[in-house]
């Protein structure tokens, strides 16, 4: 399964790091208020050391990552700890709209992968996706953002739908690929997540334009 890199261990690590940082910050404040210099020094050093270690882990995860471009029909699962929602590109069209711009319409299929839920889970309980970001990216790395509104529908296990997303892109842009990822800000701080600093991403090739 191709995912955005979110997994329970990375989430646990993130939660533990946040709670540890909060504890150290609270201890530092307590030490400063009650004028206990050694405790303030220890807690601030531990805070800084922990931050450096966590950032190093994020960088290690990013520098060992691989970028990939998925072929039309190939799925990427975007995770909210569990990876239930699968996304793929099924079609794409392009037409000139004048002014040096081309309007691309990309058809995305969203599927609730029923193979990712436990047998105990209700087959009628809907899932709402977290926030999403969609854009077309060209060979030079320029991103042309589209609206992710059509990707926010609730789904029950096994259900799927397709939605068209429009982008206006300069005619000279080449090698266009679709970026479709989680847009929750905390994912930038999760080790191994494709949104984290310098991490390579999984994008979608556009189906042949008609």
């Amino acid at each position: 399964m191709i995912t955005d890199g979110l997994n329970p261990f990375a989430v646990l690590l993130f939660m533990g790091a946040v709670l540890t940082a909060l504890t150290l910050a609270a201890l530092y404040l307590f030490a400063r208020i009650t004028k206990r210099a050694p405790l303030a020094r220890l807690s601030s050093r531990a805070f800084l050391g922990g931050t450096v270690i966590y950032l190093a882990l994020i960088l290690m995860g990013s520098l060992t990552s691989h970028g990939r471009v998925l072929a039309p029909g190939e799925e990427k699962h975007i995770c909210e700890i569990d990876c239930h929602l699968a996304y793929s590109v099924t079609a794409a069209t392009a037409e000139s709209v004048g002014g040096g711009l081309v309007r691309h319409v990309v058809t995305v299929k969203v599927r609730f992968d029923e193979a990712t839920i436990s047998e105990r889970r209700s087959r009628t309980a809907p899932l709402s996706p977290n926030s999403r970001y969609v854009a077309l990216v060209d060979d030079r790395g320029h991103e042309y953002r589209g609206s992710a509104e059509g990707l926010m529908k609730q789904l029950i296990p096994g259900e799927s739908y397709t939605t068209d997303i429009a982008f206006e892109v300069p005619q000279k842009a080449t090698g266009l690929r679709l970026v479709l990822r989680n847009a929750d800000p905390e994912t930038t701080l999760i080790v191994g997540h494709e949104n984290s600093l310098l991490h390579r991403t999984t994008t979608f090739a556009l189906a042949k334009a008609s």
Partner: protein
Amino acid sequence: MTRVGRIGLVTAGLIAAGIVFGAAAGVIAIAMVGLLAGEGVWADALGVAGFSGAVLGAATAPVLSWLLLRRIPIGRMFVVCAAGTTIGAVLGWFLAPAFDIVTPLAAAFLGCLLAAVALFLRARVRQPT
């Protein structure tokens, strides 16, 4: 065993104990909420509360015991901090304006910190001059 090795081993033990006491605090808190609200106790809620408490305990136990509570008997530290966590979580649950997990978790965290600070200050007062 080297000094670093001993520190690592003690820290791992503190994390393990933090997981156990944190999970227990979470389970007890959600059971108390269920009983006080008259809604009974759900198995899924016990799991979520236990998991959240375990993460909280794993993060706070080594930091508090190494930096703030080194002179406090370890058993007392875990029992008092777990009690503070439980009370905080229950209060957070009932004080939250709507159903959410973040408020009880934040209140549990605050309860744990307050219990640790109270232990620390009490031990300082009792110390012979």
